[in-house]
C-alpha cells in the first residue's frame, strides 16, 4: 500500500508542477484559454502521471513488515479528523491568510481574468503584491478556475488541501517504504501534530507546496542512491527541485543547495567519473523548468524588494545583525509549535518508538542534514543582506521557513537513524 501511495505522491506532485508551467506558458502566448482544451491537457498529464507511476523503480517486495493494522487505522482516523479541521478552517477563512489573498490568489486572478493584459500584475503600483514571486500556486489555481469555467474559492482551498495531505502522504509512505510502516506512520502523525504546518497549509500559503517539493526532491535523491542509481529517479529529482524554484524564491536557494550538497557530500564516496554523468542527468530534469523560472524572474518580473547593493557592505559588516538573526533562529526553533506541545517532544518519542533496526539495504548517503543546514545558512545570509526591517522580517517570515523544511527534517531524521544502523549493524 505504501509503495503505491509513494508512487502516487511522486507522480501527482510532478504532474501538478508541470501542468502549472504549461498553463503559464500557454497564458503567455494566448489571449484566452478554453476550458475544453485545458481538460484535454489535463487528460494528457493524467496519462503521463500514470506512466511515471508505472515506470517508477519501486520494488514491491520489501523487508518483512509486522502487522500494524491498529496503528494504520488510528492514523487514518487522525487523518480524517485533520481533514475535518481543515474543512472547518477553510469554511471560516475561505480566502485564507492575508498573504494568500493579497499575493497568491490575487496573482491567480490576474492569470485567470487578465486576458492578454495578465502581465499588468507586474506594474509598479502593485509592488506590494510581490510580483516577483514565482507562479506555481497562482497558475494551478487559475488552471482550476479555467477547468471549472468560473472563479470559486473551492479551488484554492482544494489546492492547499491536496498539497498539505500529499506532504503527509509522501512523508509517511516514503519512510514506510524505506524503513517500515510503524516508523512511517509515526512520522506522519508527527507532521500532522505540528500546528504551524497545519495552520500554514490551511491558510493557502505557498510554504507547504514548497515544503512538498523540497521533500520530494530529497526522497527521490535517497531513492536514487537506494535503487542502484536508476537515472529516472535522478531526472525526476531535478524536475522536482526546479518545481521548488517555480513555487517560491526560496526554491532557488534549494536548487543551489541540492547541487552543492550533492557534489560535496553524496558524490564523495563515488568514482569521480560518475559525478559529471549524475550532474548531467539531474540537469536534464532541472533545466527546462529552471529556465522558465529564471526567464520569469529576470525578464518579466520586477526585481525582488529585499535585495539592494546600496548599503550592502554596511549590512555585511554589521555584527549586530548576525547576533540578532542567530538569537532569533535559536529562539524560534526552540519554541517551534508553541504554545502547543512541541513537536520535538513527539520527535524524541518517535525515535524511541520506532528505533533503527536491521535493514537489508545499506547504501544511503547522508545528504539530508547537510542540505537542511545549507538551506538554514542560506536563509541566515538572506536576512543579513536584506534591506527590509530586520526584526519585522524575522518575526513575519522565519516560522514559515521552518515549515518549509520541517517535513524534510522528519524524513532525514528517519534516514539518519538508518544510517546509524548501517554502522552499528
Amino acid at each position, binding site marked *: 500500500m505504501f509503495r503505491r501511495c509513494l508512487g502516487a505522491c511522486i507522480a501527482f506532485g510532478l504532474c501538478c508542477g508541470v501542468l502549472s508551467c504549461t498553463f503559464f506558458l500557454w497564458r503567455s502566448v494566448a489571449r484566452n484559454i478554453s476550458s475544453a482544451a485545458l481538460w484535454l491537457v489535463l487528460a494528457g498529464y493524467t496519462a503521463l502521471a500514470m506512466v511515471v507511476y508505472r515506470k517508477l523503480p519501486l520494488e514491491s517486495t520489501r523487508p518483512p513488515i509486522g502487522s500494524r493494522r491498529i496503528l494504520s487505522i488510528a492514523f487514518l482516523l*487522525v487523518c480524517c479528523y485533520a481533514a475535518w479541521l481543515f474543512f472547518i478552517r477553510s469554511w*471560516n477563512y475561505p480566502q485564507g491568510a492575508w498573504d494568500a*489573498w493579497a499575493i497568491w*490568489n490575487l496573482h491567480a486572478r*490576474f492569470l485567470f481574468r487578465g*486576458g492578454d493584459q495578465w502581465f499588468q500584475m507586474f506594474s509598479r503600483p502593485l509592488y506590494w*503584491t510581490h510580483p516577483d514571486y514565482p507562479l506555481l500556486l497562482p497558475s494551478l489555481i487559475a488552471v482550476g478556475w479555467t477547468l471549472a469555467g468560473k472563479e470559486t474559492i473551492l479551488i484554492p482551498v482544494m489546492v492547499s488541501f491536496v498539497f498539505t495531505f500529499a506532504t503527509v502522504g509522501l512523508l509517511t509512505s516514503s519512510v514506510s517504504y524505506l524503513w517500515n510502516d510503524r516508523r512511517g506512520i509515526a512520522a506522519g502523525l508527527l507532521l500532522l*501534530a505540528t500546528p504551524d504546518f497545519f495552520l500554514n497549509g490551511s491558510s493557502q500559503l505557498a510554504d507547504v507546496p514548497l515544503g512538498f517539493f523540497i521533500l520530494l526532491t530529497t526522497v527521490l535523491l535517497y531513492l536514487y542512491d537506494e535503487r542502484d542509481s536508476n537515472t529516472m529517479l535522478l531526472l525526476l529529482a531535478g524536475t522536482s527541485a526546479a518545481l521548488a524554484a517555480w513555487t517560491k524564491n526560496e526554491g532557488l536557494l534549494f536548487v543551489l543547495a541540492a547541487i552543492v550538497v550533492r557534489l560535496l557530500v553524496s558524490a564523495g564516496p563515488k568514482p569521480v567519473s560518475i559525478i559529471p554523468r549524475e550532474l548531467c542527468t539531474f540537469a536534464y530534469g532541472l533545466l527546462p523548468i529552471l529556465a522558465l523560472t529564471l526567464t520569469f524572474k529576470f525578464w518579466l518580473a520586477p526585481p525582488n524588494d529585499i535585495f539592494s547593493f546600496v548599503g550592502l557592505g554596511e549590512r555585511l559588516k554589521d555584527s549586530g545583525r548576525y547576533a540578532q538573526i542567530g538569537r532569533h533562529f535559536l529562539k524560534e526553533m526552540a519554541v517551534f509549535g508553541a504554545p502547543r506541545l512541541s513537536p520535538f517532544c513527539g520527535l524524541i*518519542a518517535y525515535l*524511541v518508538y520506532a528505533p533503527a533496526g536491521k535493514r537489508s539495504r545499506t547504501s544511503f548517503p547522508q545528504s539530508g542534514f547537510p542540505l537542511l543546514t545549507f538551506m538554514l545558512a542560506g536563509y541566515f545570509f538572506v536576512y543579513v543582506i536584506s534591506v527590509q526591517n530586520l526584526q519585522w522580517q524575522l518575526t513575519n517570515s522565519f516560522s514559515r521557513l521552518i515549515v518549509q523544511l520541517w517535513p524534510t527534517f522528519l524524513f532525514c531524521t528517519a534516514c539518519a537513524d538508518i544510517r546509524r544502523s548501517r554502522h552499528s549493524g
Partner: protein
Amino acid sequence: MGKLRTLSLAVLIIVTLVNLLDQKRLTGPLYKQTADDLAVYDLRLQELRAFLPREGVIGYLSDTTPAGMEAGQDVLQKFYRAQYALAPLIINPEAHTDLVIANYSDPSLARMRTKGFVVIKDFGGGLALLQKKTS
C-alpha cells in the same frame, strides 16, 4: 525496552491529539460570515466592478493620503481588498484619473473630502464611484 516503547508511543499519540485538539480550538466552530469577512467584502466590490473598465488604472481615495496608507492597518487592508476584488484593473492611490474609487470608513468624511468630484454611484458604507468635475 518494551515499556519504554509503549511510553514513547503514548507520548507521540498525546502530542498528536493535544495539538490537533488545540487546532480545533484555534479553528473554532463553523460560523456564519459577517460583513467584515473578505468573501462578503469581495462580493460587495463585484457590484462596483460592473461600473468600471475591465483593465487599466483607476484612482483611489481613502481616509488618509496615499503616503499615510502604510501607517493605517484598516485603510491599507481596505485598499488591498479592493485591489484583490477588482483585478486585473489596477488601483493606484497616486494616479490622477477621471474615474476614482472612494473607499472611506466614515461616509460623512467621504462627502467632505470629495468635493471636486461627481458621484456616479454610491454603494453605501463609504464606498462610491466618483468622476472628476470638469470646470
